């Protein structure tokens, strides 16, 4: 559609004109004002991150002076090194990769299995169980942390990674997300055909469900990883600076563990970098996933 419009400028002009008259909001081309306003939004979105890098490349003393620095200085790597060593960001990154990675794999796997059962299989109480899943989707983490803390103390698990991994291995959102996707993306006759061929349920999951669910699994994986990487409340209760995740290390930075503002900014930048890279690589998929979840949710 776009290419035909490009090759036929005359047709394009009349088309646009007609649309302007019709005013069908959806197809309207953006005018200059739209681009200006969008640019302002984009600047507001990006400026704090860019300024984090600027501040991280300066010195603590320079950051206390007016006017604040507007361009990069020469201390970026020195400050990053300091954040890496003093705030334990090295350990923190390693821990966060393990925690978020495990949570992502398990959430996607179990959500796909449960989502498939809810979408395509008949079993007793399925309606009730699905309702329970949806109804409890939004329970705040605050309602779990006191018992979790007491159990953790009982097991002598404080400061160990499994304490932050175990409670997050599944999410109600994930299961609901996969169910909504599979309801329409997985044709029932495909399952029927596999059954007629004598395939067991496990074979059907492996050869029919997983291939059909792959795009949604990828998106859920990305969303889960972002969520797990940024999770805050339970990790700062369960872990401390001895064995932190990235967010725990950033919390220590913010509460005066290292008093150098430039180093703190370097830490914030380092802790965000993995997700920024992920957004750079998979931004389209993440955007698509959020929009997909929105329509169906």
């Amino acid at each position, binding site marked *: 559609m776009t290419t035909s419009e490009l090759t036929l400028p005359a047709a394009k002009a009349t088309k646009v004109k007609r649309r302007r008259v019709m*005013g*069908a*909001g*959806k197809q*309207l*081309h*953006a005018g200059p004002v*739209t681009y200006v306003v*969008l640019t302002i939004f984009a600047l*507001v*979105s*990006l400026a*704090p*991150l860019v300024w984090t890098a600027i*501040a991280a490349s300066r010195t603590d003393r320079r*950051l*206390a002076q*007016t006017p*604040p620095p507007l361009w990069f200085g020469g201390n970026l790597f020195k400050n990053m090194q300091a954040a890496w060593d003093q705030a334990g960001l090295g350990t923190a990154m390693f821990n966060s990769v393990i925690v978020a990675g495990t949570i992502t794999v398990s959430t996607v796997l*179990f*959500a796909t299995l449960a989502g498939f*059962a809810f979408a395509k*299989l008949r079993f007793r109480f*399925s309606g009730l169980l699905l309702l329970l899943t949806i109804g*409890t989707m939004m329970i*705040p983490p*605050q*309602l*779990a942390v*006191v018992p979790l803390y007491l159990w953790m*103390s009982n097991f002598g698990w404080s400061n160990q990674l499994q304490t932050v991994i*175990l409670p*997050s291995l*599944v999410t109600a959102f994930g299961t609901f997300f996969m169910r909504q996707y599979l309801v329409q993306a997985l044709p029932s006759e495909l399952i*029927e055909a596999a*059954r*007629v061929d004598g395939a067991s*349920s496990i074979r059907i999951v492996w050869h029919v469900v997983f291939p059909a669910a792959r795009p949604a699994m990828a998106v859920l994986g990305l969303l889960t990883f972002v969520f797990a990487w*940024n999770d*805050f*409340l339970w990790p700062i209760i369960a872990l401390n600076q001895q064995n932190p995740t990235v*967010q725990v290390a*950033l*919390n220590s*930075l*913010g509460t*005066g563990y290292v008093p150098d503002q430039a180093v703190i*900014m370097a830490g*914030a*930048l380092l*802790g965000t970098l993995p997700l*920024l890279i992920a*957004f750079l690589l998979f931004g*389209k998929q*993440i*955007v698509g996933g*959020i*929009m997909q979840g*929105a329509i169906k*949710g």
Partner: protein
Amino acid sequence: MTSSKQALAHPASSAEAAPGTPPGAARGAHGRGTPAGTDSWRSRLYRWDMKASPYAFVAPFFVLFGAFTLVPLLYTAWYSLHNVQLSALDHQTWAGLDNYRNLLSSDFFWNALKNTFTIGLISTVPQLLAALGLAHLLNYRLRGSTVWRVVMLTPYATSVAAATLVFTLLYSWDGGMINWILHFVGVDPVNWRESDWGSQFAVSSIVIWRWTGYNALIYLAAMQAIPTDLYESAALDGANRWQQFRHVTIPQLRPTILFTIVVSTIGATQLFGEVLLFGGVSGSKGGSEHQYQTLGLYMYDQGWIIGNLGKASAIAWSMFLILLIVAAVNLLLTRRLRKSQ
């Protein structure tokens, strides 16, 4: 659509075996040579597989979800009726409703409730309005539409902790970027951390920054699902673009708007990381006058700084009750909405 597809598929498959019939049984009917014992064993296995596998597939999810979400929810209620101290975890004594009574008579609880409400309001309303406007712009046919969307979502990639550390520096009284920008328009330096409304505004701005793009994408998805002919008939009736937005887009978006209001309200009720880190070293107090101590922060303060886990549980359950009320109001509104349509 699915049913018609199934209807088409049926004749073909029923020629061999009715759908749902065990393959073993079908084969058994024709192949007389095979011993009946294996056949019935296979068909029994098949039937067992059909019956049990759905439960096997939902079991991992429900076991983990139950153990780490539903059971703790109930345990929190149980602990809220007990005296549980961080210093003596094994000595839990029955306290009845003492923790709740204690809360209701505590100024700090009401203060936290009030702060949660005001910060929730000044973070949610501008955020959703901006998201609605942004979604409208993103809905135009744009050059590089994906790039625009990803850019608007980058704040979402920034964790609460990282974002708050940066904003705290931007908002610093002396030499902070925001006060420096404000001095150009003749505004005296604002003490964002100490002042009442200043600190609440600053905290809200972090929430707004992180979530506007995300909500815009949700609105955008809903806008793209609005049938074009609605706009065309509105245009034929002579509605201009603003009127179309007002009388077509907004009513069509109403369920989505309600959804985002609920999600944002839930987020606002549990607001924690932003206010904890904005306080810097003072941390869980939420400022020298508790001016931005939210319920989430108050719970953390009472539970892990003061060390009263029973009271913390009671605060958690009050948050849950507030959310239940929100859910009930939402349900009522949705019903009314459906009736009016």
